């Protein structure tokens, strides 16, 4: 009776370890995405629009543009096209 109970505990623990834990790759993914929100502004926006259709201000758009940006882009300078 006692031995049967002990076997169940061992098997259950093994199953939990094998199936319920994240793999190394999954932990890596988790570590590289530590936050659900991209930024404080993202969090604020989500909290503001928790129910119903989202309302977007012009400032939201500007922030989205800034935060989506890829850094300084290679582009022609206006001075190559126009003179003051």
């Amino acid at each position, binding site marked *: 009776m006692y031995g049967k109970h002990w076997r169940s505990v061992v098997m259950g623990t093994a199953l939990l370890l094998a199936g319920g834990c994240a793999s190394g790759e999954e932990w890596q993914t988790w570590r590289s995405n530590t936050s659900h929100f991209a930024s404080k502004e993202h969090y604020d926006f989500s909290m503001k629009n928790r129910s119903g259709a989202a309302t977007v201000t012009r*400032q*939201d*758009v500007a922030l989205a543009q800034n935060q989506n940006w890829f850094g300084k*882009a290679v582009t022609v300078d206006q001075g*190559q096209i126009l003179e003051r």
Partner: protein
Amino acid sequence: MITMRLGRAIVGLAAAATLALALDPASAADAPDRVLQPDKYTSDKGRALGQKYQAALRDLNTKIYHCMPWLDVKPEGIGFYKPKHLDGDVRYLSLNVNVDQQPAPEFTRLSVQDRVSSMFSRYVPHLLRSMATNDLLKDPNLEGFTVIASWLKAQPASGQQAVMETAAAFVPKALVANFLRGQATVAQLAEGAYVMAWDGETKLGAMKPRAWADDFVLTYKVAGYTPDPKINCN
């Protein structure tokens, strides 16, 4: 055909796709000043135009900021500039914008000529309607209008710098007036415009875009965004 390809190619705009961001909604944003200040012109003619139409240029800046939020007017991107390829103190009202859009693979696969044609069709006629007021069309010191648009050519690979393509369209005033009176089509507008293109900082030279009617600017709405009711977006 190209129009249909463009419709598929230019997909969701970055601003619309990434609008999970915000500040306090009560703080309605004023448009950042993108107008060249009158004291920065290098000739009396430019300065006089800048002073005379300062309010009109500010209105244009405000209108684009609120009514076409996916366009970002560059700093000092609005002014009576002299096109570099023209001789003499020739003054065009110029508008220089970045188009905030995610490049779909279909758009990236188009030839540069077709991308320039697509962007010309989409933005130049519509922006000219906002730029060319009756007063400006009648002003003898103004020779034409310039629309400069830059867009992301392709999604940059990880760690790579983004490269913008740019097209600058220079349109003589008489042609703009004819277009606005309905006496010239969008195709004729493109035929009569002088268009130059750049790939990043590399000049590609003059191009002859084809153009067609494109009502994207009139019909596109950023999800959830309503322009400030004080601004006339018509």
